[in-house]
């Protein structure tokens, strides 16, 4: 054992988990896939009094189509999302992004609820939640409520949940689009992103009718770029559209510098990725 001591409970239902978490009086932590929590525990950077293990709650693991959206249970493993035919057909940007989520061993264990709750600004799933305008169903002592992704991510590694809340499932509205792309640059394949762009468009007679753009690795939270989406819809499709898109995306962010890359470099990377993303999306049959 490396972590500081803690009590461990393994409830079999979501209600029991909420109860256990509430009983911990703000000193509890949820264990899902453990891919971020266990290192933090082992370095003793976090010291919960109680660890509530969600892995026995079967009801939290599913991928379902429900009308105009796909619902994913919080305990669904990255690997299952990566290989889901339903995700591939209805949430293709998510499907493409999943192979960038860390490494195989981590994808086998890591869960979508865990990744969203951890709120790493350079992780793919929080960005996809922003991108798809996802709704997070959260269970707390007062029952279930829904939080929009845009309200969920507050800061780097910080979400808006109360200490006794548990993310139960996430709804991803299906985009009826005809072109999309996911682009990411990392130091090595599988590392946290230095910069990443997700793009989806629907084309019509006058050009782009609807657009979705999100970025990550370039701010304290993933960002959906609503202004850029608007400009895309207003702008026609011509030979310069990819360049304009790249400029708009890059000028929307002011990334920080750190040990791995300067802010200027991240911004440049982002522009390059955006250009490539638009070129890819436009190359799909409209």
């Amino acid at each position: 054992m490396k972590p500081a001591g803690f009590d461990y409970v393994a409830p079999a239902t979501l209600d029991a988990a909420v109860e256990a978490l509430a009983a911990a009086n703000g000193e509890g932590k949820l264990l899902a896939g453990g891919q971020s929590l266990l290192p933090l525990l082992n370095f003793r950077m976090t010291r919960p009094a109680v660890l509530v293990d969600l892995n026995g709650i079967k009801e939290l693991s599913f991928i379902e189509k429900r009308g105009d959206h796909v619902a994913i249970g919080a305990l669904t493993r990255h690997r299952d999302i990566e290989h889901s035919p339903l995700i591939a057909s209805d949430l293709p940007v998510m499907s493409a992004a999943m192979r960038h989520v860390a490494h195989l061993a981590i994808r086998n264990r890591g869960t979508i609820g865990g990744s969203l709750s951890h709120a790493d600004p350079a992780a793919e799933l929080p960005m996809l939640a922003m991108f798809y305008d996802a709704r997070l169903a959260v269970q707390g002592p007062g029952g279930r409520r829904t939080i929009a992704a845009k309200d969920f991510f507050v800061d780097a590694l910080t979400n808006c949940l109360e200490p006794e809340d548990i993310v139960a499932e996430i709804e991803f509205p299906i985009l009826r689009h005809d072109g999309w792309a996911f682009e990411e640059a990392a130091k090595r394949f599988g590392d946290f992103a230095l910069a990443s762009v997700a793009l989806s468009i629907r084309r019509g007679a006058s050009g782009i009718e609807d657009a979705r753009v999100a970025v990550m690795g370039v701010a304290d939270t993933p960002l959906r770029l609503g202004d850029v989406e608007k400009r895309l819809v207003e702008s026609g499709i011509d030979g310069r559209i990819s360049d304009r898109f790249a400029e708009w995306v890059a000028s929307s962010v002011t990334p920080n510098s750190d040990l791995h890359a300067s802010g200027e470099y991240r911004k440049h990377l982002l522009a390059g990725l955006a250009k490539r993303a638009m070129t890819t999306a436009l190359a799909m049959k409209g």
Partner: protein
Amino acid sequence: MNILPGNLRFGARQPVKRLEDHRLLTGKGRYIDDQPAGNALWLYVLRSPHAHANIKSVDLEAAKAMPGVKAIFTGADLVADNVGTIPTLPIFKRADGSPASFAPRRLLAHETVRFVGEPVAAIVATSRVEAQDAAEAIAIDYQELPAVTDVKAAMRPGAPVVWPGAPDNIAAVSSYGNPEAVAEAFAKAAHVVSIDNIVSQRLVPCAMEPRSTIGEVDPKTKRLTMQIQSQTPARTRDSLATDVLKRAPDSVRVRVGDLGGGFGQKTGLYPEDGIVAYAATKLGKTIRWRGDRIDDFVGGTHGRDLTSTAEFALDAKGRVIAYRVKSIGGTGAYMSGTALIIPLVLGPFVATGLYDLPLVHFEIKAVMTNTAPVGAYRGAGRPEAVFVVERLMDAAARQTGIDPREIRKRNFIKPDQMPYKNAVGQTYDSGMFAHMLDHAAKNADWDGFKARKKAAEKKGLLYGRGLASYIEWTGGNAHKETVSLQATSEGRVVLHSGTQAMGQGLETAYTQMVAASLGIPMDKIDVVQGDTDLAQGFGSVGSRSMFVGGTATAVASVDLINKAREKAAEHLEAGVADIEYADGVLRVAGTDRKVGLFDLAKNESGGRLSVDSTGEVDAPSWPNGTHICELSIDPETGHVTVERFTTVDDVGVPINPLLVTGQIHGGVAQGVGQALMEAAAYDSSGQFLTATYQDYAIPRASDLPNIGVTLDDSAPCKTNPIGAKGCGESGAIGAPPCIVSGVMDALASYGIVNIETPLTAAKIWQAIQDAKAAKQAAQ
């Protein structure tokens, strides 16, 4: 050198698959942490959070009251008990001729801490987690002092002083050559080529198995048995016994077991080993310490850290007529056993590379900073030195317009100059450097480069070719090894060797040698290493295990046959001269009178027919060769993709080409890591920024191309009977300059001549932007 009968084949050139793999890959290895917990107490090492501070007071009261705590030791306790410090070689001098000066390396800091991660207290408890919990309850009042982490900053007047004995932070210096003659040569040179800041940055050696130690005292005899992850068990034992515990070496036994990588980081005694030994002795209990990965990052020795300014004077034909290098070697806050010898001696041994450069002037300063101690890491001094000369040779090729192969060939030592004594007095016995270069160029399809470059450029990529020729000094100045070889009455042959397997495959290589020499099947041969009660050689450092340890094994094989012939002569009542040995049977020539080797063992004491044999080589061996790579760079991102990597390596006679190729592969991978991504970084306050694999990047399989290795044995080693040269480190020597050469070639059109490694995408991109900006400004 031992003279051996010429008809023994020693199993050379056989690509036998690793015999140890089945055991290791199926979980049957015996690493230290595989030991059952038993009733051992656990020791936890509390480390300094400050880079430089005085310890004003230590409050242990709360910690001592924690559950399970049996004892807590601080630096003061060790001083009171007269526990010694960990030594380094005492042969170096400061510029004024006074002895080298540096802080004593204590097991636990006393009064002052000098780097983040320095051990300050050791807690012994019934479980590991209790010991760690108690460590958190220790209250230490630190008075923080200014710290310095950069070697150049450390040399500036007024810089924080790491150790008062050396107010300029320079622990020791060395110099070589003839400054006046070199200055004269530069004055009349047709070309002067110089590079200002050639940096082999600080690296973290990354053995798969983090360090750990167990100490156990026999209650009756008081003998101390240590299980230590050491590449050099006997030396580690001697240092622990003599320097630290101040007791007779034979009252301590060091055992290793399987060792999950060393790379030089595990060559010496560590404070944690000493603390465990001290605690075991003091408490009379079995004590275990298990390091986490972070204990290796912050508490293990780092590698490299050499900053050089170098210049060539060349004549009009591209012959280098003089070579001048000024280097700063970072030692860290304390001297590891090898801290000074690496930059001051081992690097200079090969500083002139494969070139005939008699006129040199080298000045090296060993500089202390508030950082972890620097020690050996695969190559230890040679990668740094070869990096400098190869970078300069490339720059010279570009400046003079001579083909990079041609300028090397014009300056290579020629085969007819062998044996060749280099500028610092080291003698190369053999080598066909131009031949190796040509062979590598052929294997790398040198002429096909243009077409590949064109194809890459069509895709919008930059494309470059890197070339580096390397030479390595091997042997660790330890040219003797004693092994014991035994035939047992149970029908087995057992070899005890003081060299230490840590992934090289020594068990396989020694087994195939013994099998070939004795004509005994390999599955009847046992190789036992890592026990100072069984063998006491120098250990495995400096790529010496095969050419020195293998020589000893070859000698032992001959000795065992000779001894068996004598015993058989008695047994069969015949003259020794009439006894023939073949495949485990001794026979009176021309008769059917015979006795088996293992039957003879039955008459011996303990059922073992045994020889202790010393193998000695005359000199270091000098492996060498040429690496060629091709790589592409995405100018948009700066990302480097290594497309091709080809080596031709002269390791003399390869005993097991499969194992050697694996050694080259591993070394190249680490060299690519050094060139492209690895860097140990401190901030200016002395905090270590790269203490996990999230921030310290090492190459993965997906970052490497196929590595095409060819072993060329046209020039067998002439100073040992088996003809082998060392091979463990050469990949890590050739690869860094080769990759950097390729990147510089790809960036040549921008006029970029030097970027400090690691050449990360971000740095390359920035260099391209800067070059573009400079070009625009100039217009």
